Every structure is written in C-alpha cells, then in structure tokens.
C-alpha cells in the first residue's frame, strides 16, 4: 500500500534580485519595468513513491531540497507544480516546539500544540498524563515555557507530536537536541512505530542515524533525486569522496 505518492513535484521560490518587500519599491520598479525575479528551484520535478511501512532516509548537501520535501509532505508548502498524495495520519517533527508560546505554561502549551495539530481538547485531556510522563516534566508543568531549557522544550515537543500513533512520521534533524538518554528514548519510540508498521521519513546529516533507522535512502542534489536505493549503498556512495557528483542513480 502506498503512503506517499509524488509526481513531478516542483517547488519554486521567486526571489526578487533586489529584495522588494515594500509596495512603494514594487510600484516604482514595476513602472520602470525593472522587476527582475530569480527563480530558486527547491524541488525540481520530483517523482517518488513511498510504501506503507518503509523507512526512508533523506541525505544530501545543505540546500539540496531535503527539508522542502518534508514540508511538502507535511502540507506546510503546497508545491508550485505537480501533485502529492499523503495517506494516513502524519506526525510532523520538523522542528520540536514550533508553535509553543513562551508566555504560557507547559500545560497550556500542551493543549495549544495539540490544537495546532488539529486535535480536540477532550482528546488532549486524555493524553495529558502520558505526554507529561514521557517528557519527564511533572515538576515544571505550570511554569512558563520561556523558563524551560532547550532540551526541555524539545522533549515536550517530541512527546506531544508522537503521543498519537502516527501512520507517517516525518523527522527533520530533531534528535540533535536533548541529552543522550532522551535521544535513546526518542529512538526507541520511533523504532516502536516502525515495528508496528508506520512509515518513517527522516532527514539527517548523520550516516549512522540513517543506517540505524532506515532501509531505503534518497540522495537529494539540487532539488532532484540523485540516488535512490538500499540505505547502505546510497549512504556509501554519498560519503565516498571518489564520486562527488553521481552521473546516474544507484539501482
């Protein structure tokens, strides 16, 4: 069964050569016929299919389009061209603690974050104890989040986003924060999802993380899929200094 299907997905940012952010500048430049845009192709006609239960690691250099791909799957960005179909409940871990309000308490933020993910208040009341236990924040629950350390924010964010059993888990380099013990706890939970048949799409610069969690890897380069195949082969090709630019895909 297919979990994520993309065909000819293009994401194009139009960046004015000289940054025009005000209406005045826009009007002046438009009158002079001087509106020059540069196009930045973050994703260029990407087609791929990810089946249910697959674990896919996305690797590539900075700016290759890895995070953009996750944003498209998470519906943060609607592609400029092409089509995307995502089947199942998505848990987006693009940035832990995105959407937290520093002025509100940990408890209030749990409800706010749940609401941002489209969950009802009743559901969150039921889930509160489990989230607090996993994040190990019982003692700080009623303190404002601005007093939390970045590790505590990450723990809370991870706990909320993964408290619902997801069909598709999107992870973008979020495990770099938090102490080793908590990282292990997160990895364990993610392996649990995987064992129960969830699809995992993970962006990472760490070959070990990709090899440890993923069976398949996609190498992105300049907004295109440069290689797609078993994780070990693709990662080896990627880290190998002998082949800086692959001419064609690894089978």
């Amino acid at each position, binding site marked *: 069964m297919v979990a994520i299907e993309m065909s000819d997905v293009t994401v194009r940012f139009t960046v004015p050569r000289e940054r025009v952010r005000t209406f005045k500048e826009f009007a002046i430049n438009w009158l002079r016929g001087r509106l020059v845009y540069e196009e930045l192709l973050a994703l260029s006609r990407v087609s791929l299919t990810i089946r249910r239960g697959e674990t896919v690691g996305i690797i590539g250099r900075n700016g290759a389009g890895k995070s953009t791909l996750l944003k498209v799957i998470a519906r943060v960005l609607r592609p400029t061209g092409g089509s995307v179909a995502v089947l199942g409940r998505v848990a987006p871990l693009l940035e832990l603690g995105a959407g937290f309000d520093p*002025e*509100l308490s940990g408890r209030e933020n749990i409800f706010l974050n749940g609401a*941002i993910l489209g969950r*009802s208040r009743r559901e969150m009341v039921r889930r509160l104890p489990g989230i607090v236990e996993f994040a190990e924040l019982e003692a700080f629950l009623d303190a404002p989040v601005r007093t939390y350390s970045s590790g505590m924010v990450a723990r809370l964010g991870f706990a909320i986003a993964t408290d619902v059993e997801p069909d598709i888990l999107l992870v973008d380099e979020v495990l770099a924060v938090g102490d080793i013990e908590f990282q292990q706890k997160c990895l364990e939970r993610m392996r649990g999802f995987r064992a129960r048949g969830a699809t995992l799409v993970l962006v990472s610069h760490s070959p070990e993380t990709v090899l440890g969690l993923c069976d398949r890897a996609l190498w992105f380069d300049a907004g295109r899929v440069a290689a797609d195949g078993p994780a070990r082969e693709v990662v080896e090709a990627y880290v190998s200094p002998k082949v800086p630019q692959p001419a064609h895909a690894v089978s």
Partner: protein
Amino acid sequence: MLTPLREIIQYRSLLRDLVVRDLKVRYKRSALGIAWTMLNPLLMMVVFTVVFARFLRFPIAHFTVYFLCAFLLWNFVSQTTSWSTACFLGYAPLIRKIYVPKTVLILSTVFSGLVNLLLALVPLALIMVLVGHPFTAKLAFIPIPLILTTLFALGLSLFLAPLCVMFTDIGQIYQVLLVAWMYLTPIFYPVEIVPSDYRILVDANPMTYFVEAFRAPIYRGVLPDGPTMIGATVFAVASLVIGWTLFQRYSERIAYYV
C-alpha cells in the same frame, strides 16, 4: 469552498485556544490584567468627552453614551483589521513549520476582538446607569448589528492579511487610512453637521451604517431604519464574499512569503 469550512470545524479547539491565549498573553504582564479591556474605553471616553462635549460644545444630550457606543464598535473594526495586517508575520514561526488552516488564524483575531468588544459593553452599561440613560427593550436588537459588523471586519481582515505578507508597508499605509476613516465616520459628531458637498463621503462609508445600526437601539431606543439595515447588510456580505474569495486564492502562497 467546503474544505476551509470543514477545517474550521476540525480545528475549532485551535480557534478557541488562540482566542483565549490572545486575551491571556495580551494582559498577562500588566498589573490590572484583563480589566484593561474595560478601563481602556473608559479612559478614551473621558478624553473625547472633554474635547467634544466641553471644548467644542456639541449639542448632544448624554454625549458620553452617544460617543462611546459608536467608538467601541469602531475600535473593534479598527483593532481587528490592524491585527490582521500583522497576523501572518506574527505567526510566521508556526506557518513555516506546521500546517495550520490560515482561515482559522484570521478568525481567531476577529473573535478575540469581538470578545474585547463584548467585555467593553460592561463599562458602557455602567455609564448609561451613571448618566441616567434609559434602557429599553430595543437593546435586544444589538446582536444583529454586532453580527453584521463582525462579518464586515472578517471580510476586510481576510482581504488585508495576505496582502500585508507580500507588501509589508501596506500595514503602515492602512494605519494612516484608519485615521482618515475614523474622522469620516459619524462617531463623535452627528451626520447632520457634514456639509452636503461632502455628504457622499459619509454615505459611501460602510462604517456609517454599522455605527448607526448599533447606536439606534442603545442611544435612541429605536430600531435602525430600513436604509441603514440594507446598507449594513450589503456592505457586510460584499466584504465577506470578496475577502473570502481572494483569501482562498492566495492563502496557499503565504508560507512562501513569511
């Protein structure tokens, strides 16, 4: 058309949480807290009453009531639409990271403005008691102008918000326009004092109709007349239809600009 409506229902918890958070955060660090929603109009009213009833000597009985009911309604529209110009930039960290229906974000600013307005009706009632202004059964009509004004403010907010993401100085221009707009609305002067040459400016102003529809039951103890209600309804519906249509067309692009 249907998807955004379905999403509003799915994300109703978010809508409520954003409104509550707005009220909480706005006053959290001030000593008097939420009491400011009620104190603010009272203090503004003192200023305007001194200037217009004492200095300029407008011959209007119970000027405080005449002024305050219109001013509160104006405040609601000007506040919510101003907030909407900064709405998406304020939520930028969220919009860049997580999918949220954009309509819900705008709805939340309009609703928190509405809650502020409802709270500010308490000091209005207090003033009416103090100056001995009569309370009539016609007060039961005020939900109607309130709903129409809310729809108008929502439509205008939906129109302004995406525009301000693409051109950040629209927000500044709008602040200037708001001042002109306030003076063109019969808030602290009666429509009759406007010279006939300029009357068209006041008649073409949507706020004239909302203010009059809201003021008639409160100040005059009567129902608003037919032309007022027709004007208010037409402007409310037109604003909502235009705002909603443009918003659905451009809201998908917002994440690219913030």
